[in-house]
């Protein structure tokens, strides 16, 4: 049954995994997301749903455990934070190359290097442009609240299996650590072996039954022409994903002169900026990408015909701004504002940046 609780973003990821029938979680402690593994070990789902929880010896091991679980058609999840996600990038490339479904949660922090443990959005390029090697993409979801942290786990698994592709929830230390009211959905059971065989029997490694030939999960190809053909197939898949799955939320964009583009916690901060601007009689809208890959290009392209400019607000030195420029075809000025390294911008700072870029030039 549905339930309402006050919970931390990280705790909610664990709760959502158990409630949506996740089969396995593999993690390694790293701030600011360790509560995910801690909450799961408090919940002891192996005694209730049978979900497996393993504390791995490294992020490298964790993502490869996920690769193993995903190979069996199981719903598997890993979580980490920025430096740990860097270590997982090899595995992400293999998951994409082997067309395996997997949910990856990045509660990101300041970088580069070991960086800081405070919130950051500087992993945008890594998440949406690759991170690992080769011609692949992750599907990237950007929750803007604790409720969305919960909802996107189930949505992420759906997308991962629909497209047989790893999905990343790109969150940050603000959303991971803050507490909000969250509506928890009724628990769904894990898939039975029979259901897995029926749904994913064409590729999942389950022990070869007499009824089919052997399944092989691999990303190796010795013939470059066949690899090229496969990469075209992957790209066709990504094209379909871009056509069907891009999501964004738009606030006050219909008659806006200027539009802030911001995701996750930066979008939360920018909501306040829209209010501050309205008090001054300025028409400022907010476009919040909910999916970062696919990027909501169509909406930005449409707005670019009539707004006077975009401000990309991100807790980074400016990464998503490149996609805003591409989507808007640079028809109007696109500026970036953001604090970085673990510093969170205030609404006032963002508003001042908006005014200085667009009104005082």
């Amino acid at each position: 049954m549905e339930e309402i609780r006050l919970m931390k973003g990280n705790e909610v990821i664990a709760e959502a995994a158990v409630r949506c029938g996740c089969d396995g979680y593999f993690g390694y402690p790293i701030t600011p997301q360790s509560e995910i593994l801690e909450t799961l070990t408090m919940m002891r789902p192996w005694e209730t749903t049978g979900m497996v929880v393993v504390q791995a010896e490294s992020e490298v091991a964790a993502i490869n455990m996920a690769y193993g679980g995903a190979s069996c058609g199981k719903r598997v999840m890993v979580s980490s934070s920025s430096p740990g996600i860097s270590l997982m990038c090899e595995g992400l490339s293999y998951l994409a190359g082997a067309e395996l479904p997997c949910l990856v949660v990045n509660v990101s922090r300041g970088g580069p290097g070991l960086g800081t443990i405070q919130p950051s959005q500087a992993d945008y390029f890594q998440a949406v442009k690759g991170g690992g090697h080769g011609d692949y993409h992750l599907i990237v979801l950007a929750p803007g609240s604790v409720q969305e942290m919960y909802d996107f786990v189930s949505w992420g698994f759906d997308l991962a299996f629909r497209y047989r592709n790893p999905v990343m929830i790109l969150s940050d230390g603000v959303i991971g650590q803050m507490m909000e009211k969250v509506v928890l959905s009724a628990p769904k059971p894990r898939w039975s072996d029979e259901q897995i065989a029926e749904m994913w029997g064409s590729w999942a490694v389950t022990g070869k039954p007499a009824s089919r030939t052997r399944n092989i999960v691999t990303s190796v190809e010795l013939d470059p022409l066949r690899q090229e053909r496969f990469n075209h197939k992957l790209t066709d898949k990504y094209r379909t994903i871009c056509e069907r799955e891009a999501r964004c939320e738009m606030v006050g964009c219909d008659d806006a002169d200027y539009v802030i583009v911001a995701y996750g916690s930066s979008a939360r901060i920018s909501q306040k900026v829209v209010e501050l601007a309205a008090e001054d009689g300025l028409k400022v809208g907010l476009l919040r990408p909910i999916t970062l890959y696919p990027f909501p290009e169509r909406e930005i392209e449409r707005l670019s015909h009539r707004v006077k400019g975009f401000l990309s607000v991100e807790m980074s030195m400016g990464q998503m701004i490149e996609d805003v420029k591409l989507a808007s075809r640079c028809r109007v000025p696109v500026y970036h504002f953001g604090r970085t390294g673990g510093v969170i911008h205030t609404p006032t700072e963002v508003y001042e940046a908006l005014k200085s870029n667009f009104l005082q030039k």
Partner: protein
Amino acid sequence: MAAREVARTPENKVYSKPRLLTDAVMHFCPGCSHGTIHKLIAEVIDEMGMEHEAIGISPVGCGVLAYDYIDIDWVEAAHGRAAAVGTAIKRLNPSKLVFTYQGDGDLAAIGTGETIHACNRGENITIIYINNAIYGMTGGQMAPTTLLGQRTATTPQGRDAAQHGYPFKVGDMLAQLDGVCYVTRQSVHTPASVRRAKKALRKAFENSMQQKGLSFVEFVSTCSSGWKMTPVEANRWLAEHMLPVYPLGDIKG
């Protein structure tokens, strides 16, 4: 004397290709141990009646295409990560026979961490470890297991302990871990050693199915191409040079 015709009947048949070996032409070089070890795996799985329960994890290295040759479900892992992949497969499918197949570069160099920790957790899987003291697929470079003085593409003057350290005796190290129930070192360079190796493999697989912990079966193996020897010379070199450093027999269990 005229050649005597012998009718082929089930009664006089003394040998056949294992049922679970496919008809794919193996890519292994003449004199390489991989083919014989593949054959043993196929035979043991069939004899245990585990064809429908077995899940193999192939490595990066010459063993990468094991899935083309043994007719069971397979996962091909990233370089060195097979033990982590196997951990999750077995935890999520406790009734399956899960084994990894890894060379000495894959397991004893890049995959050392995953190997040690899967062993230490006592995962109920079998690790099959092919130790031929060299990187085969990439063209004969030094492996952690390369013997002192052995010439390879990256030790053209021979392995020097001062610069490269010592031959890595992985099995002896893993035998110290509580999660490991069985460590054995076998070879397939003589008919007698093939028979002993097959028994060891069966024991390891049975341990895995009886949830006794991790079983580790090392095969001291030949790489005639990497060693730049004929198959016969490679078998002789294995006996004379490899076995004194890597003596055969059970190390634990």
